[in-house]
Each structure stands twice: as C-alpha cells, then as structure tokens.
C-alpha cells in the first residue's frame, strides 16, 4: 500500500516529534509551537492535507516511526551518513553546523579555540559531540568531552559550571542564548564542518512517493521565499540549504 495514497485518502499527515527541542518544537504557554509547526503547516498546504502532531520523548519517536504510529518525523535531525543508512532524510531545512555556547560573561572563552584543554559538554553519541572532539584534537591540547543524555542536561551543567561550553547545532544554541541572555552566550563563529538538519522518514519503498512529495513541497516552499521567512522568524537568520544531500560531510 502506498503511503502517500493513504495520507491523501485520509487527508491527514501524521508527524511525530519531541517537544523539548527549541526552537524547532517546544511548548510555549502550554502550546506546541516552533519552526516545525510553521513549516509543516506549509507542507500540509502543498500536499493538501491536515497535519496531525504526535509528541513523544525522543526515545519514543523512532520506535513510533518504525511501527507506523505516524508517517514521518519532524525532529529535525542532523543528516549523517550513519543515520542515512537507516532512514531517508528530506532535503535540508536548516544549517546544523556546530557552534559553542558559553556562560554569559565568561572572558576566558571568546573564540572557539579557547576551549582547548577544557571540559566541554554535548549529547551522548551525537554528531555534534563527534565534531567537537575532532575539533579539539586540532587544538594545542584536546578538550575534555562530557556526554549527556540530552542537550538540556548539558545546558544545566553549563549553568552549574561543570563545563565551560556546550557544543550544539548553531540554530539551537542561538535560541538558547536569546532566551536566557543573563545566563548563556553564543561563541561565534561556528567551528564545525557544514552540516544540515533534515526530517527523517522511512526508507521503505512504499514510503518513497510520500518522501518525494515532501521534498517537492519543500522545494516549492524554498523557491517562493516562505522558507526564508520561517527561518528568519525562528533563528533570526536565513540559511542557504542545498537541494539534496547524497553524502553528508560526517
């Protein structure tokens, strides 16, 4: 059974996501909001279907996708080669290049190189962690990586002072710094290799038409400038994103 047909017939595209990933998906005043909500609203229009959100902790999202609880994942996730083996990603929706967040007013860190030899936090087994370690190896003395079950704990530990910086994708930490300027501050520029966020979906053949349709919708949204507006609204900047990632940089 072709999933696109099923979605069209039902008139509903079910999208799974977690709501602890600002500014993409989060809870503001009890409401689920974020860049994904706006973007999928546009995708829905392009496909002519309603969007139905299924919000779960990240642990539950991929088992849900694999068991067919919903048709795709909003995430988004950094597109890596390992992950592409298991899932099909949409065309990129934002840049995911890694940058650093530091404690507000920390004079010892003004540029990425300053983290040499210091404790830096990131999510366990994430693409961002791998990159900051690799980056640290290029510095005079390697960094001391600290791994967290999710980035939110890493931010908490930055506030608590156990790490001097947190490495995460630029859009995320830019938003954190903007939300709590008294506590956090962005370290510019991003240091990592260029990576992108995409929405993961199923690689199975019956999903192919759906994923193609979403890519087409995204292309249309990018082409007429709606994407730019949404990015500006949530990240404060617009990103140039390629049409399609065949092979990621990491």
């Amino acid at each position, binding site marked *: 059974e072709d999933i696109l047909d099923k979605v069209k017939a039902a008139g509903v595209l079910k999208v799974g996501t977690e709501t602890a990933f600002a500014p993409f998906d989060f809870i503001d005043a009890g409401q689920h909001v974020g860049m994904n909500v706006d973007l999928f609203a546009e995708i829905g229009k392009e496909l002519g279907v309603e969007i139905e959100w299924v919000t779960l902790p990240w642990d539950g999202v991929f088992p849900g996708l694999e068991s067919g609880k919903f048709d795709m994942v909003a995430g988004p996730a950094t597109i890596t080669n390992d992950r592409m083996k298991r*899932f099909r990603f949409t065309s990129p929706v934002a840049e995911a290049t890694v940058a650093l967040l530091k404690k507000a007013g920390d004079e010892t860190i003004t540029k990425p190189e300053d983290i040499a030899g210091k404790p830096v936090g990131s999510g366990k087994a994430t693409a961002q962690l791998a990159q900051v370690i690799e980056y640290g190896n290029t510095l005079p003395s390697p960094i001391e990586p600290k791994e967290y079950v999710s980035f939110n*704990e890493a931010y908490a530990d930055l506030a608590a002072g156990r790490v001097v910086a947190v490495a995460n994708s630029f859009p995320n930490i830019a938003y954190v710094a903007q939300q709590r300027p008294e506590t956090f501050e962005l370290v510019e520029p991003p240091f990592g290799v260029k990576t992108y966020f995409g929405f993961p979906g199923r690689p199975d053949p019956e999903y192919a038409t759906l994923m193609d349709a979403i890519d087409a919708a995204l292309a249309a949204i990018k082409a007429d400038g709606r994407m730019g507006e949404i990015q500006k609204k949530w990240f404060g900047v617009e990103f140039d994103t390629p049409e399609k990632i065949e092979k990621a940089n990491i």
Partner: protein
Amino acid sequence: MTFDLDLIISFLPDILRALGVTILLWIVGSALGILVGFVIAVLRRYGPRGLDLALLAPVELIRGTPFLVQIFLLYYGGPFIGLSLDSVTAGLVGLTIYGAAYYSELWRSGFNAIPRGHIEAAQCVGLNRRQTLKRIILPEMTMLLLPSMVNMTILMLKETAILSIISVPELTLAVSALGTKYYAFVEGFAILALVYWALVEACSAMGRYAERRLSKYRFAAT
C-alpha cells in the same frame, strides 16, 4: 521493523563496561542505603522524640518525590549552593539517600515485628542495649526483613537507570548511544529489557536461596 544484531555486537564492549558501572552503583548504593537506613531507624527509635520527628520529614520528602527530581536537583542544583559533585559521586550519594529513606522504613517495621519478650529476655540475662541490638535484634530482623529487602533492592536497580540524566556512564546511558547515533532504538530497548531482567532474576534467586537457608531461624511456635 529492523533489528540489527551486528550493531549490538559492535557496541558490546561499551555495554559491558556500562553494565559494570550499573552493577557497582547498584550494589554499593544499596549497601550504603541499607546501612544509612539502619542508622536512621535506630536514631528514630532510640534517639530523643524530637529527633524522630526531625527525621520523619526528610524521609517522607524523599519517599514522596520521584528519584529523577531528586537526582536532578542534587547534581545540577548542588553547585549553586556550593556542592559540586562529579556525576558518579552524585549518583552514589543520590541513590544512598533515596535508598536510605526506604530502607529505614523497612528497618523500622522490623524493629516493631520483634517480640518484646525477646528483648526482655536479653535484658534479664544482662545484655546491654548495644549488645542486645547487635546480638539479638539485628540478626532476628535480618531474616524477618529479607523478602522486603530483596524487593527494595530490585527497585534500586531500576532507579540506577535514572542516573543517565546526570551522565553517569551506566547501562541506560550507554545503550542510548545506539539510539542517538544509529537511531537503533529497538535494539537498545531489547538489550535493556534483557539485561535488567537477568539482574533482577539473579537478585531474586539469591533472595530465595537466603530465605531457604534462614528458614530454620523462623520464630518458633509457642
């Protein structure tokens, strides 16, 4: 649904190392919890009445709130009041405090279950308080409490999984890497279920064995 066995095998060394951490924290945390819980129970029973009431509040506070909340506040909140523990220490301290609250209640029920006459008999032959505690009350309680102690210790194992939130490199955190890196969540959860199940069964088997061994100490019919 995909299930990638090779992926699990490639993660095996990591998982085994993490399993070691889990078991270590579980055993040390439970042991310390049992010990501290005993001290609390003794203080509440033999100390002044004020101390009993003073200890009641924290015990109920710990028992009434989720371990997740406690450990989060201890680890991430601690530095704000000058208590900066590393994750394994914080995990151990947190587990000990959490366990101590529960174990202390078990010990207390044990004190109440010992027939007064057994203690009076000790008094009559001249055992002092400390000797009575050590030679009579403690051993008698141990066998009375064995089943509930085993039960609580199993719960303690389950709670060690929460420690992933403060980056203790234990099993759940290690397995989460399978999910984050390869998005192989199903494999991860299968491992967690099997390993925890095996540990729980091992623990209950030991409990049953000890219970059988101690069965002849059960109270004599009068």
